[in-house]
């Protein structure tokens, strides 16, 4: 088996041992859920319910006329108690629908449609109707991504899960391989692609086997086994590893005829097309060295991280963690409070002890060249940071700041602990303001 990969990048310790073999579990419902009306890239939704309304699981509660947007749905049976701004995972206040969870939950009933002769338009319509977005973190509306203005010949399902600690995609692969493959085929059909590739890192042998068992003997479908290197799950790096094509700077995968979708998204597409089931729940990983009982859980969108942490046994030894991160440890968001809700793009809740967070003060760049060696975009993080620090944003852009996708490798390896990603963001902001 030949293992594929991309250039540069870095082998990170992956810390997946504590959860990779734990089956996806359900947890007790919370007392209320907080469902932000914007969980995606694009136009925010407007609430289509009012305070006092009784809502059913899967009922649409927010929608938008805009093309680039994704509807949101009630994730429980209950009563709308408020529609107000609530803090989300980025710390911003976002208009949200608060639902008090009813004591008695009814089993939702879904239709059962024949997916074998759905057309591309049918598939896109079902996806739009289900409010599906990219579940790997970017949360871009999926029906938009599957309406390409250029021909696409390859669909890649991103099953790399290259961020340390996260194992939710891995578990989905193992436990729901059939749904995953069916969803992936629907995606390929929607864009009329001839080739379907699953990109999986070698550290998920059971996931690779599960998918292979589903696609055995089929033409035009394959598993691209990739090296356990970060950031293998970044779109451009994955496309390069799987097809050898390089997406030009500033361009989308479409430029080289490729569409990339995440594992969770593919399963959601299947459920939307077959059952008409909207995206109101997701699988995520609770982990980190300060988590009492790490695992993978399926939770309703809108559940607060506080409730999930409690259900997973709370903090290890009852000790307050040094940091709580939503998403992966390399690109995720640190939280200042625990009442923020899980959204469609939340892949993990990570609890870190103080000891895990060695954060020495940052020093000048000593030009050790480690960041230059490992940057997967072949940029010059050293020069970017030196210039941006002095406010020389034009020069920072010349050394590649605008092509940085903030994977965090440069900061990880830097012996001077330089805040390069932050300086890249400053540069992008300054350049955008021009």
């Amino acid at each position, binding site marked *: 088996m030949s293992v594929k990969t991309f250039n540069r990048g870095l082998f*990170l310790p992956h810390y997946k041992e504590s959860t990779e073999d734990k089956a996806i579990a359900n947890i007790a419902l919370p007392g209320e859920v907080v469902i932000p009306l914007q969980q995606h890239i694009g136009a925010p939704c407007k609430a289509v319910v009012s305070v006092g309304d009784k809502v059913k699981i899967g009922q649409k509660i927010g929608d938008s006329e805009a093309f680039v947007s994704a509807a949101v749905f009630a994730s429980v049976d209950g009563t709308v108690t408020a529609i107000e701004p609530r803090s989300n995972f980025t*710390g911003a206040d976002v208009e949200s629908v608060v639902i008090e969870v009813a004591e008695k939950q009814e089993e939702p009933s879904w239709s059962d449609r024949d997916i074998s002769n759905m057309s591309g338009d049918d598939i896109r319509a079902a996806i739009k109707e289900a409010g599906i977005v990219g579940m790997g973190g970017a949360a871009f509306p999926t029906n938009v991504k599957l309406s390409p203005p250029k021909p696409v010949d390859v669909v890649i399902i991103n099953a790399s899960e290259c961020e*340390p600690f996260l194992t939710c995609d891995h578990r989905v692969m193992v436990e729901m391989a059939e749904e995953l493959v069916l969803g992936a085929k629907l995606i390929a059909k929607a864009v009329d692609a001839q080739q379907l590739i699953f990109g999986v890192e070698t550290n998920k042998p059971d996931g690779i086997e599960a998918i292979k068992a589903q696609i055995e003997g089929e033409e035009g479908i394959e598993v691209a086994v990739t090296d356990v290197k970060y950031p293998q799950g970044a779109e451009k790096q994955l496309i*390069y590893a799987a097809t050898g094509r*390089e997406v*030009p*700077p500033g*361009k989308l995968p479409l430029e080289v005829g490729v569409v990339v979708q995440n594992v969770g998204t593919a399963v959601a597409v299947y459920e939307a097309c077959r059952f008409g089931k909207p995206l109101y729940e997701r699988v995520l990983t609770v982990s980190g060295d300060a988590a009492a009982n790490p695992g993978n859980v399926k939770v309703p969108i809108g559940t607060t991280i*506080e409730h999930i942490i409690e259900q997973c046994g*709370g903090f290890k030894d009852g000790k307050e*963690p*040094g*940091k*709580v*991160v939503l998403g992966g*440890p*390399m*690109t*995720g968001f*640190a*939280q200042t*409070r*625990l*009442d923020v809700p899980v959204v469609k793009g939340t892949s993990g809740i990570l609890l*870190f002890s103080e000891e*895990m*967070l*060695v*954060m*020495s*003060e940052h*020093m*000048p*760049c*000593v*030009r*050790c*060249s*480690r960041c*230059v060696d490992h940057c*997967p975009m*072949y*940029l*010059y993080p050293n*020069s970017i940071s030196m210039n941006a620090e002095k406010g020389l944003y034009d020069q920072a852009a010349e*050394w*590649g700041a605008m*092509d940085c996708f903030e994977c*965090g*490798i440069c*900061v*990880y*390896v*830097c*012996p*001077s*602990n330089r805040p390069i*990603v*932050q300086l890249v*963001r400053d540069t992008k902001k300054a350049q955008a303001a021009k």
Partner: protein
Amino acid sequence: MSNDLSLSFNTSPHLRSKNTVQQAMYDVIIALLPISAVAVYIFGINAVFTIAVSLVAATLTDLVFRKILGRWNTPFDGSALVTGLLIALTFTVEASWWTLVIANVIGIGIAKELMGGIGYNLFNPALFGRVSGILFAGLFFNQVNTTFAPLSYQAGPVDVVTQATPLALLKMGAEMPPMAQMFVANQGGGLAEVSPLALLIGGVYLFVRGHIKWHIPVSIIGTVLVIGLIFAGPELAVYHILAGGLMIGALFMATDWVSSPVTPKGMIIFGVAIGILIMVFRLALSPTEGTAFAILIMNAFVPMIDRLTKRPVFGEAPAKAQAQAVSAETAGKPA
């Protein structure tokens, strides 16, 4: 659980490697232990004295300049100790204590701290200090030349401790010590000249620890070897590599992070240019200080090398190639 935890809020990434500047500096010191040990074995207490004076001078200079420049709170990174040790190793045991002090004050105080501190220096502090120390000694303190071997090598063996340096012998065309002895342990010249083998062991250690790449040392040594073969013949070519400051220069000075290029391509250009300059100095000009001057001169070109060797961003090269192919394809066609 409350919602007002004292959680640290900062931006991604939230993980860090264990790399620190301190660790790297301590590794350089470890890498210099073999050569220091051989030097002490050969020169005895005099070598201990030279190293000790230089380390004390380095530490005091660091402290005083930080105090003056208000950089009191910057973390202690161990880089001054590295510079102090490197400076000591470039001198002979006859170097007077004040020459060592001058070299450290200029190297650490002026070439580094006054330039903005670690990371901002254009020149390698140890070499800058070493060369300045000698210039000062030569310019203003002529009367003490006899206690200063590198400037008095032409007088032949001036005292019982050191013999004429192999490099001087090489220039004079005198008979060289046996090659094996040159490689393992010999008595010529400065502390770091006594054992290329010990330096090599230190260099390999730094390489294995991931602090240096092979590109600079290999391109310097390779270039010197090739030019030596062409102009001096096979046997002398090898002596050119083993003699003088070449080994410590190629392995420890030219590989200094701050004052060398950041990409392999840049490193090779840098290394080859240094190798050429060394041989120009050695074959055509003065036999001493060739390595030091060659590296210092190329230090000045590092920003230029970095700019000229700038690599294309991911996806840029194939995109360009494709655009060219398309324009070539359409060029012949009637519009």
